[in-house]
């Protein structure tokens, strides 16, 4: 592999249109490209929570959509549903995000609508969004940006814009990378 080709840098960079938890001025930003139906992402969900507990206000976490819809039939609708709920606010988005990862075995359209209702969002807003429009476009845009950033499967993490190529399922490895990035630059 030539060095010139391993340009796995996040494009576009994190901006205020992203869904983020933690302060914008945090020393380290962890970005995940994920798929709500992917079982590895389900495992990563708990790992990210651990990292957030460890890092506190030092870390910002951003989630972008990367639904592999041929492999996971419900993944695209789940991503759109999270965006539809997220249109009402970041708190709503993250509630939906967590709900989806905690119910990976029940992500049919009617389940997605029901989860939205539980958060106080009409289920029809979710099901309407499946037909296309801005929210679906956003999911596709996330996917396209991910591919160009070097996402090669799910989950893929970026630490301060650089792809993390270590073993994400090892909390310590990811934590070490995040801590390293959070250190003041020499």
């Amino acid at each position, binding site marked *: 592999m030539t060095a010139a080709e391993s340009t796995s840098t996040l494009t576009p960079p994190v901006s205020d249109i992203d869904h983020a938890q933690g302060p914008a001025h945090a020393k380290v930003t962890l970005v995940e490209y994920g798929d709500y139906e992917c079982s590895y992402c389900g495992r990563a969900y708990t790992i990210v929570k651990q990292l957030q507990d460890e890092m506190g206000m030092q870390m910002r976490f951003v989630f972008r959509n990367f639904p592999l819809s041929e*492999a996971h039939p419900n993944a695209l609708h789940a991503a759109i549903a999270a965006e539809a709920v997220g249109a009402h606010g970041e708190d709503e988005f993250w509630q939906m995000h967590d709900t989806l990862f905690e119910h990976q075995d029940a992500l049919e359209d009617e389940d997605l609508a029901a989860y939205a209702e539980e958060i106080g969002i009409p289920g029809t807003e979710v099901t309407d969004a499946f037909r296309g429009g801005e929210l679906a476009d956003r999911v596709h845009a996330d996917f396209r940006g991910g591919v*160009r950033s070097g996402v090669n499967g799910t989950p893929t993490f970026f630490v301060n814009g650089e792809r993390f190529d270590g073993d994400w399922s090892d909390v310590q490895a990811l934590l070490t990378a995040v801590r390293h990035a959070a250190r003041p630059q020499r």
Partner: protein
Amino acid sequence: MATTNPTNPRELLAIGTEAPDFTLNSTPDQKVSLSDFRGRPVVLVFYPADWSPVCGDQVALYNEMQSEFAESNAQLLGISVDGAWCHLAFAKDRHLHYPLLADFEPKGEVSKKYGAYHDELGESARALFVIDANGVIRWNHLSPDGVNPGAAGILKALDALTPELRGSATAGSTP
């Protein structure tokens, strides 16, 4: 799993060389030739084996990207030494939308021509080629077998093709 393999695939066929034509089975009763796609770019994806975890991720990723490849008028072709029946089962299982070609008999012949064959393993290497509409290699890449190369490099190479080298219908503004 992600051990570095002996990098004995010979040098990948170089950028700027004409891509050697070949004809391989895409299904037990259908054959595909590289020259069938003359006039549009081709992305050749050599990979070690159907069903292996990394290959599975890689083919799944490309499978989601039909619209991005279509924007460059490009055709994707997967190639491994698995037989056509194996490809058929794998493609069906993963709902693949692009052909998988069987470099099966004589084993690895096409992979060898492209410098994308592991003699010791008896498998194709994990190598990528972007071939332009005139049949010339414009980009290549060899990954360690345990590393899924993703698609960023392919898209960048396709973006770099001029409209003429894409052979796209939208190209014809200049004579």
